[in-house]
Every structure is written in C-alpha cells, then in structure tokens.
C-alpha cells in the first residue's frame, strides 16, 4: 500500500471549491511537486492532506500520524533558542536527532541563539530542520523555500533526498525548481473547480502522471 493516496479530492476555501477531482498516490521514496497559479488551492489541498481541514469530497488514505506539515509560519517561539525549539517539537512528536537536524540545515553555530535573533532565512531553515525531528514519513510542505538563499535551497534538497532515501515521501507546493530530478510534478491547473458543475476527471489527467 502506498504511503498516501488521494482519490477524487475536492477542497474548498471560504465555502468555494478551489480544485476538484485530484487523484494521486505517493509511495515511499517519492516526491510530488504541486504547481499551479496563486489562489488555485494548493495550500488548501495541503492542509486537507495534513488533516487540518476536511475535504469537501473524495478520500485521503494514509496511516494515522504519518504527516509532518510545514507551512508559511515556522512554529517557532522567539523566546526559546534554536535547539530548545527543536527539542520541544522532537518531544511532542516523539522523534529525536536534534543535532543531526541542526547540522543538516547548517544551524549548529546558531543552536543557542534565541529564535528572535535569527534572520528570516535562518528561521525558515530552523522550521525545515523541525521536519527531521518529527520522525514522520510524509512531509507536506507549503512553499518551503521562501526566503532561502541558493545554498540553503541546495541543502534543503539534500535533506529531502536523504529523507526519501530512508523511505520517506514529500508532497511539496513550490514555484521554483528544487533540483530534485526524481520528483514528479503535478500541475493542478486542469483540476480547477468549475462553478456549478461537478467536474469528474478533467482532460489532461493522464499527462499529469506521465
């Protein structure tokens, strides 16, 4: 069984359907990149997969407690140091490996700085390092590379590749090229919800999985 499979999913934001008929599966060691114009519903779709929002229609199949979610906000407490922030999330999620996660995103030198004193890019890196300490197989990432420089994007791609090599999977909404040749790309534009009609499978369905 695949780690995550989504069947005929439709999600709504503010009571309006954004995308519908989305179907995909994610196996261990795979990454799927979602693309589409702003406002199409990528974030809403990811929140539905993370279990923060109920889908309007369709099914999401996965085992319980397998998703680690990272969105625009990093979930960091400014008064705690970088390593305290990570240690907290490691305890909550029952994971570990804080030093390894700090090293992976090149934060070891900043481990004892309060998060308030980190720059936007450093905070983002800390927020991404958090994924490693959750010990969860499916990473659901919403624009993970915002405010990262080129070197950090490369480091993040390495971290993703390492995660997939260990049998993890990632579902990523992003506009930039992450440099992950093994990642599949799913363009959500053909799944845009049409007002009034319940579109079944849109044309272009097969191409999305080519």
């Amino acid at each position, binding site marked *: 069984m695949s780690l995550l499979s989504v069947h005929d999913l439709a999600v709504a934001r503010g009571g309006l359907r954004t995308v519908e008929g989305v179907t995909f599966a994610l196996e261990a060691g795979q990454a799927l990149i979602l693309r589409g114009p702003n406002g199409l519903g990528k974030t809403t779709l990811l929140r539905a997969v*993370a*279990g*923060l*929002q*109920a889908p309007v229609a369709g099914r999401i199949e996965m085992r319980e*407690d397998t*998703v*680690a*979610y990272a*969105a*625009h*906000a*990093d*979930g*960091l*407490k*400014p*008064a*705690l140091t970088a390593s*305290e922030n990570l240690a*907290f*999330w490691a*305890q*909550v*999620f*029952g994971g570990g490996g804080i030093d390894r996660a700090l090293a992976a995103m090149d934060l070891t030198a900043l481990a004892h700085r309060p998060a308030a004193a980190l720059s936007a890019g450093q905070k983002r890196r800390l927020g991404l390092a*958090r994924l490693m300490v959750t010990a969860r197989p499916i990473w659901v990432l919403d624009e993970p590379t915002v405010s990262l420089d080129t070197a950090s994007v490369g480091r993040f791609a390495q971290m993703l590749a390492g995660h997939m090599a260990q049998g993890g999977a990632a579902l990523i909404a992003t506009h930039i090229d992450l440099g992950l040749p093994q990642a599949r790309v799913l363009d959500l534009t053909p799944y845009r919800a049409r007002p009034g009609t319940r579109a079944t499978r849109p044309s272009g369905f097969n191409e999305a999985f080519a």
Partner: protein
Amino acid sequence: MIALLLRDLRLATRAGGGFGLGVAFFLILSALVPFGVGPDRATLAPVAPGILWVGALLACLLSLDRLFALDHEDGSLDLLATAPLPLEGTVAIKALAHWITTGLPLVLAAPLFGVLLQLPGQAMPWLVVSLAVGTPALSMLGAFGAALTVGLRRGGLLLSLLVLPLYIPTLIFGAEITRRGAEGQATATPLLFLAGITLGVLALIPWAAAAALRVNLR
C-alpha cells in the same frame, strides 16, 4: 504533554511572557480600592470578599487572549493539531499552564491582598481555599473563550464579553465562601457548590474548546 507544559511555563517566565502580570494587577487593584472607598475597616471589610474575587477574575482574564493567539500567529497551533497529542489534551495542558502562571500566584498572594483590604484574619484561610478551588475553573473557561476567538483580530475584548458571564457562578460561590468565613458561619455548602462547578468545567470544557479550535483552524 509534559513537554508542552514545560514549554509554556518556560515561555511565561522568559522576557515578555507575562508571568506575574496577573499578581501585579491584583496588587494594584487591592491597593486602589482603599483609596477609592476610604481605609475604614467598617467600609472595607464587608466589600473585601467581593472585591478580592472580582480582582482575581480580572487578573485571570488579563493573559487569556494570549493563550492560543500566540501559537496561532506563529503556526505552532497548526503543528500541535497535527501532533500525536489529542487536541483536548493540548487545551487542558495549556489551561493548566495558564493556571500555574496566573491562578496559583494569585492563590498564594491572596492573604497579603486581604490585609490591604482589611479582610478579617479568620477569613484568610477561606479566601485561599476558595481561590484554590475556584481559579482552575477560571483558567479552563478562559481557554474555551480563547479557543473561540483564536483567529480574530482584536479578539481580546470579545473574549472578555464571552467569558465573564461564564465566571458568574464561580464568583458567587467563591465570594460567598469568603464572606461566610469572615463572619464565622459554616462554609461547607458554597464550597461544595464551587468544587462541583470546577470539576464539571474541568471535565467538559476541554472537549468544547477543542471543537472550537478545530472549527477555527480551517
């Protein structure tokens, strides 16, 4: 869950955490009332139980709007919701952390403020007991209000309007215990009522608050 409790306590004691804010507010209120109504024992003593309890209520309310709002702003709440902790447990732990940082200092400091308000000495133990039994309900009801208003801008005022009416039963019985204690009457009946209200709130509110949070997270 222990990790969440420790984190909240640590955050409260660091810069900008607001630890002691409630007690300081309580102190100022108790110090102001004698200036307003005069330092006479005859005028102060009868109103002291009520004022102490209203003060405790307002002090509790001060830090409530931060209970979930801060976690919501920085995205922690989304992450907590996807964590293996049940949301009900998260609510209960956050209310407990709020009580430890706000309610417990009030309970411990209350006799001092009783002296400022000329509360008779024999009422002091009852003031402490009533606050110790009643303030957990204040924190938990506050958590419910905070969960309802979590996504709103300027939700603090709405939170007060929602929560203060819910505090009325606790206020009535808490102040009654202290008044009866001051007059040397039996306090068992209001104390049992107060304990009953607190236990009921502690048992039921986490589910209501977690349901409100789930709606607001969408």
